[in-house]
């Protein structure tokens, strides 16, 4: 995860100047961060494709080798949400990659973070968090191990409590605005995902 702002990529000049300016305008990243991101991204590609890294897509399996995502329980969701691939193979272009880094960077606003967090937690992509989504979310958070999984009774209780708190319109699901309301008042959300790559 050596994607801080300190190190500059060696092969930095491959992004055109004006594109670099536009990326700075459109993301929460600084120039150095974009360059480092570019370097990291092109390292994911095979050697012969590195020349035109801006226009190639990196398959999901390569994205997941990033140490930043390796340990993340939401890795598949993150890839899915940020990918613009039409074929649905969750591959990522450089611009998708930048989008992802921008959202996860420290300086991104909590609004946009909440928006994407909602997308990530919405496992079936139907625009609301329903019981199934919540269940899957809990399972993601408690890990794969047998002993750390919650029992079904506990799960039931937990989801009931969550819906009681957050489902303000009582339709059995949590929608985006409810989610944003809940999350915006959390004291921890400011540091939510300071991940930079």
């Amino acid at each position, binding site marked *: 995860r050596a994607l*801080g702002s300190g190190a500059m990529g060696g092969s930095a000049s491959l992004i055109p100047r004006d594109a670099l300016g*536009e990326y700075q305008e459109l993301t929460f990243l600084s120039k150095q961060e974009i360059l480092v991101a570019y370097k990291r991204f092109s390292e994911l590609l095979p050697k012969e494709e590195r020349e035109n890294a801006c226009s190639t897509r990196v398959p999901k399996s390569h994205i997941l080798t990033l140490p930043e995502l390796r340990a993340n329980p939401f890795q598949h969701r993150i890839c899915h949400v940020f990918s613009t691939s039409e074929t649905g193979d969750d591959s990522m272009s450089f611009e998708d990659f930048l*989008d992802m880094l921008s959202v996860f960077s420290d300086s991104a606003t909590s609004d946009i973070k909440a928006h994407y967090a909602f997308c990530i937690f919405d496992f079936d992509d139907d625009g609301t968090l329903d019981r199934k989504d919540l269940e899957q*979310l*809990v399972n993601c958070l408690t*890990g794969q191990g047998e002993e750390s*999984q919650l029992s079904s009774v506990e799960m039931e209780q937990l989801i009931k409590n969550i819906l009681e708190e957050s489902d303000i319109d009582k339709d059995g699901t949590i929608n985006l605005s409810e989610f944003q309301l809940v*999350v915006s*008042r959390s004291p921890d959300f400011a540091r939510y995902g*300071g991940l930079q790559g």
Partner: protein
Amino acid sequence: EDKEEDESKEEDYGSQQNRASRRKNYQRKNRDGKKAGEEESRKKDRGKSAPSKYQKESGNKEKKTTKKGKERENKQKKDRKNSTSSASSNSSDEESLSEEEMAMLMEQVEQKKKLISTMRNKPWRMVKKLSVLREAQAFVEKFEGALGKGKGKKLFAYKMMMAKKWVKFKRDFENFKTQCIPWEMKIKEVESHFGSSVASYFIFLRWMYGVNLVLFGLIFGLVIIPEVLMGMPYGSMPRKTVPRDEQETAMDFSVLWDFEGYIKYSALFYGYYNNQRTIGWLKYRLPMAYFMVGISVFGYSLMVVIRSMARNANESTGDGDDDNFIFSWKMFTSWDYLIGNPETADNKFASITTSFKESIVDEQESNKDENIHLRRFLRVLANVLIICCLCGSGYLIYFVVKRSQTFSKMQNAGWYERNEVEIVMSLLGMFCPPLFETIAALENYHPRIGLKWQLGRIFALFLGNLYTFLLALMDDVNEKLAEEDVVKNITHWTLLAHHNLSVGNDSTITPPPLDPADVPRGPCWETTVGIEFVRLTVSDILVTYITILVGDFIRACFVRFVNYCWCWDLEAGFPSYAEFDISGNVLGLVFNQGMIWMGSFYAPGLVGINVLRLLTSMYFQCWAVMSSNVPHERVFKASKSNNFYMGLLLLILFLSLLPVAYTIMSLPPSFDCGPFSGKKRMYDVIQETIELDFPLFVAKIFSYVANPGLIIPAILLMVLAIYYLNAVSEAYQRANAELKKKMQMQREEEKNKRNNKASTNPMLQDLEDLLTPSTKTESPPKEAEDKKIESPNRTSPVRKPGRGAVPDGSPMAGGRGASLTPPSQVFVTQPLPLGVRAPYPGQPRPWGHPAGPVPGRGRGQPRH
């Protein structure tokens, strides 16, 4: 995709609305302008920044609508069509634009600019963002230049260019700034392995380094370097010379290591400085500078600590005591996205699971406590034990310091005797915290509360030790002061005797040819205090580093390599690897800083030592934590504990200010060393400067200001101001709590209503949807509706103020007004639902209707 479409539509509507309102407004102005023939005012208007103008004017919009005629409406329609079509159609006749169109164009340009600057906040895909950005930029490029005419044009173009340059410069500066932050990569790496709590220690360390660097610059630049460069050279006077009987050993390492010998008579310590009023060709007032720097070290530190505390407090807007969403927060925000290490991730999984289980259990049986008496007894017992420990350690230190004073009088004291105080203090600091932790196991607190207790106890221990040390030191100083009087007399007599001798011989009137090394001198208690602090700091550094080396690194090596040939599993079993002790390290840092603050007045070189220490410990601890520590078993996120540390720092700063202030104000400085020698009190230097260097009236003013008759009222005034501000903030808090309660009540009612609604008839639901259309999508039809509504009201002026009072006429408020009016048609058929809605006429509905596809929109739309 749907949502994105929505938002872009929204944007368009918004811009249309703005444009329309601006237009109306401008037309009116135009008319007025023609009447009055004031060309100038318009020009001035153009120069103003558009957004603010827009706000102001749209606020008045409602009033102006009354003046509008029919033909305006027609024009408007055309206008809207115009603007939605691509911008190219406007380009051909841009020269012939009328004033109103110009204004409109400018409005659009401003809008686009705003869009560009806020684009990154939109949850769009990069491709879309890029295309919108390019379009907007092209638009701005094209029309920006066309906006000014004649004279104004050049100025306008110039302004635009400067604005662009300024933006670019700001961005470059930001880039530069982020590049200048040191150790970002190192900290990020630690963060990914150990989570944000461990990283917060290193961030704190870095911050501390920055503060110390400033203090170092202050002291070195204004005190040490001037004295070294311009002051009297070494060996020219007694205070700058090693005494004769010490000269043989003054260069030995063992002597230097104790900060005796040459180091004692160097610029690192107070005693070296001369009391000459001005030095060098600059006429630099060194004693004055010394005093002011000593004060400003504290002033700057106070300012920095308080400022960063205030910033932290501002940042944590969401108040943690709001326990409405315990479960949801645990669910949605518990994952620390900074974790990049599988092992840490496993620990995090485990801790999340436990916290879920705990909270479920808490919920189920919140007040069930089977043996409360036993627990109470154990807690009391634990506290008694810990108080015993604290008293014991305090006494031990007092005893040791007393003993060291007798040792120091002995000539041939061994190494242990000379360093006993430091050794004992370091050992106490090393062994007491684990002891406290063991005792705290009796109490069975929740870990988070337990951590606070533990921190508080260690804090008390350190503080007690430090203050006992100071008290003992004070005894020492008093002894030295008595000794000094004797020496003073001796020197006096020596000089007198010599004088008599020279007078008797009638030879010369030259000063005594006594070598500076031979002059009898006082003990110089300030330097003694300074040396004490420097030694304490150095031994603290060594103990910390050795603890890390032995406790972490050697242990890790042992566990790692001996594990191959051992009877049990060392890694999982008894010694295992060490965890990074965040609280202990932070407290160590805080106390170290306290010592620096206390000692820096008497040992200006101490800050330099501290800067070195922080620099090395950054690298050393980073290396140690990465090489030989394991992530915490209970990985907890760093959230608001930052201000807790800052609070400790502030307390320490205050406590270290006390002894320094006491010595400055009430002890006489030594008669033969330091910048204040020969004065009764150290602060006399200020009086002297004022009397000698400032004109007479300043001295007069100063003497008036220093009059107790003025100071006491001033203090009283300040106390009253504090009282008043406190009362005001309390009132705000009460109001806040009141509002919160109100909101909660509203939420409850909302809930109830929703629950009821589910069972009521579909007719009601229809109505509900009509009543609360998503406000944003309603804005364009509002224009038309406004007119409809306003036309009957045109004659009634009573309505106007009420409407004008809507704060700055935001589309939100305007839309609300519009959306509330239509029901007049509905009332006829269904008067009942008014009762349902009535309690909240103006209540925004952030929850019920999201910006996305709303059930009611389908029905709300056809109305326009």
